[in-house]
């Protein structure tokens, strides 16, 4: 199938522990500030590993198109819907739509692609009082159901609420996907929107991803897996000892060249490729030599006719987990060869937002290229053994404009990897 349309980023947003907007998050990255702190939304003060990246100043009523929505959605949905709203606003597509004599074609050609965390443990706690009252006996369980559980409970927990309400809010009716694939959900949403625009299925798409990685029950299990740090998130650093989970959301507006030209839209970067594969290593395991990841990235470069020597930046997954960092470093080293691509990562600032992490990183990468900058990793001190070959600095560096491409790498459970390439718009 021929893919010919060029795809541009014309709007973006981010809500993270480091800032309630993309600008605020970017400012934190530049200032070396981290939003990681002790988790406060839930009382886990007695836990040894209790750090997380929580949104500051979380006020759902002010974040939604209709405050009544709060009753029928969940905490993470608020973030996702708000991220989508911010990105749509940033893209300025609606004032253009308002000028059209009919909006039908515009809406039909606007897709919504979402990286969703699926269900969260805390959404089922509404049933705990009922179970407490009825035990294992289904008769009282059923009898008290209607008095103990909110009638809209199922709607509150729908994993596709953000997709649905983004569509309902703006009337977008195009192709859509709601990808529930752990940490690569957001990145795969970018990929699918990109391909849909490339082949002309749609003219533009809102891509949004969101997650609440800080809920205690999930944190408990991640901790048991041994992937959580109780101190810091220091990617590729000699002192790295685990990741820190976070909540947040981010969104992009992707648009075809034809659509960009038609409405004279500002473009912030061009999406020029991407690819995703699995290592088949297991739900919680990864390929220890990084060969699968290297092969996935190399295939992506080859498929899109990209030369590694044209890359001015690589935004690594860099989640601070020792095994993940080391295998990623090996893979990047294999791909880069003699080319010393500047490497950075952003999770040190806002934590690992899991499903939304790939979109957060793509938004930050877009802003970095706009500012002609490769941001440093503020808490980076000394390379971990096995990561010394990566071109990482604590300080910010100038983005080499003669090498206009940036690669963003994303990894998730089920040993699934995804990468996206964006190109700086002059």
């Amino acid at each position, binding site marked *: *199938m021929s893919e010919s349309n060029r795809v541009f980023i014309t709007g973006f947003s981010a809500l993270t522990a480091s800032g309630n907007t993309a600008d605020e998050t970017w400012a934190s990255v530049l200032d070396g500030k981290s939003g990681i702190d002790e988790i406060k939304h839930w009382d886990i003060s007695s836990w040894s590993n209790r750090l997380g990246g929580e949104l500051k100043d979380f006020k759902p009523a002010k974040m939604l198109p209709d405050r009544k929505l709060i009753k029928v959605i969940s905490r993470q949905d608020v973030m996702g819907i708000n991220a989508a709203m911010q990105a749509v606003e940033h893209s300025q597509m609606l004032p253009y739509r308002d000028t059209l004599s009919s909006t039908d074609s515009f809406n039909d050609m606007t897709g919504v692609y979402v990286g969703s965390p699926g269900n969260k443990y805390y959404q089922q706690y509404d049933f705990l009082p009922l179970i407490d009252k009825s035990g294992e006996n289904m008769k009282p369980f059923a009898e008290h159901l209607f008095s103990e559980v909110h009638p809209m409970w199922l709607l509150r927990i729908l994993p596709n609420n953000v997709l649905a309400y983004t569509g309902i809010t703006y009337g977008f*009716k195009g192709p859509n996907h709601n990808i529930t694939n752990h940490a690569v959900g957001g990145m795969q949403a970018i990929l699918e929107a990109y391909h849909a625009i490339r082949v002309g299925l749609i003219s533009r798409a809102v891509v949004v991803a969101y997650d609440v990685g800080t809920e205690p029950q999930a944190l408990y*299990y991640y901790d048991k897996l041994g992937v959580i740090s109780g101190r810091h998130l220091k990617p590729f650093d000699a002192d790295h000892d685990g990741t820190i989970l976070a909540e947040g959301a981010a969104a992009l507006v992707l648009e075809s060249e034809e659509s960009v030209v038609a409405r004279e839209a500002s473009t912030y970067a061009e999406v020029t490729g991407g690819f995703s*594969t699995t290592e088949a290593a297991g*739900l919680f395991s990864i390929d220890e030599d990084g060969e699968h990841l290297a092969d996935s990235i190399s295939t992506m470069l080859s498929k899109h006719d990209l030369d590694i020597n044209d890359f001015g930046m690589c935004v690594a997954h860099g989640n601070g987990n020792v095994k993940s960092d080391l295998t990623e470093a090996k893979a990047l080293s294999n791909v880069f060869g003699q080319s010393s691509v500047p490497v950075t990562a952003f999770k040190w600032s806002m934590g690992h937002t899991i499903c939304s992490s790939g979109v957060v990183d793509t938004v930050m990468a877009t802003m970095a290229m706009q500012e002609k900058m490769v941001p440093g990793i503020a808490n980076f001190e000394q390379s971990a053994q096995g990561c010394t070959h990566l071109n990482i600095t604590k300080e910010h560096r100038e983005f080499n404009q003669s090498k206009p491409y940036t690669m963003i790498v994303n990894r998730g459970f089920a040993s699934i990897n995804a990468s996206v390439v964006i190109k700086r718009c002059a």
Partner: protein
Amino acid sequence: MTKRRVAVTGIGVVSPLGHDVHSTWQNLMNGDSGIDVIKQFDANAFPTRIAAEVKNYTPPLDRIGKHKRFSMSFTNFALDAAIQAFDDAGILPNESTSKRWGVVTGSGMMTSEFDYLKRFKDTCYVDGALDWQALQEKTNDFYQLTDFGKTTSNSGLSQLIQQFNITGYASSVHTACASGGQALGLAMQVIRRGDADFMLAGGFDSMINPLGLSSFCLLGALSTYNDEPATASRPFDGARNGFVLGEGAAFLILEEWSKAKARGAKIYAELAGEGNTLSSYRITDSHPNGDGAIQAMEQALRDGGIKPDDVDYINAHGTSTKMNDLSETNAIKAVFKDQAKQMPVSSTKSQTGHLIAAAGALEAVLSVLAIKHAKVPKTANLTTPDPDCDLDYVVDGPREKSLGAVLSNSFGFGGSNSCLLFKHPEFEGADA
């Protein structure tokens, strides 16, 4: 623009009508119902006490690999149906092809099993509040890695990946009842764009558990014909009063057409087009005039390069809810205009129940079988005409009919709509 064509070369099913393709199809053709009183737990005090359960089922544990420890019941359905599909296609990923194999699942909501939630409650729910310190203190009694594995959103996907050593594209989608259809559509797009040559695609789900049943009872979405389970699912009938929960899995092997031909594969049908739209109307209701569903069917026809009068049968979403069936009827009228009333339209949910995230995948398999056997399944239990639902719902079926092109509709809570277009492998122009 030349699209890489996509062949269906293998199918597998675990359904309320049977544990494999053959028995499911035979029981469907015999007019049997998969719906009965719920046996998995005591549902007697619920407003709805019936469902379409997979009955007397034993998973093929001898063929499921070591990672079954993370399996919920419906993950076993998925692994079983996928094994059947691979067996049927006569092909497996190997060292030289695994990177060209991908997998896309339409998966359920991955809510916790009741027993697990109760164990969690017993561990740390104290005096009406959660005590997180208690979770840490009682960790030796509570912690099991398998609990985390079972409740992780892409757990089922992971098991399919490992079971068959697939190392290409892998993804999992959830758009409620549209999930299975959208999973197949996405898999088709992955082959078309060249990211894979072979895909395992389908759906698996079960919400027949205390929480799942509760959630739909709270919404009042389920049929309450508890005393007449076999006739409770009545799509397009004037007395329909809700859908019937089902469970199961269905998977298809999709192959790039020329590769399937080159290896002499049996080709059931061509997955020739997809419509994928949003209604953007309401969370639970489809638009009464069919908006959203209309565009989905039109897109599928356009994508597959055919005209409305090329379509020989529509496997409807047909849930047996008031609004869906009216909306879908109106959508079909809008797309097929004067031909709408001559178009055979049936809902196999009348016999299988509604498999939620797996529904689109099961109905894709049934659509493919309808093409293969040249038989249009009927809509069972349509005895009371609804003046607003006045199409040919094949109440006299199964009906013998040569089928060149078939549409399969799936519409989900949240407004996602999927329409898949299957063509007979010898559909006129198919080899052009």
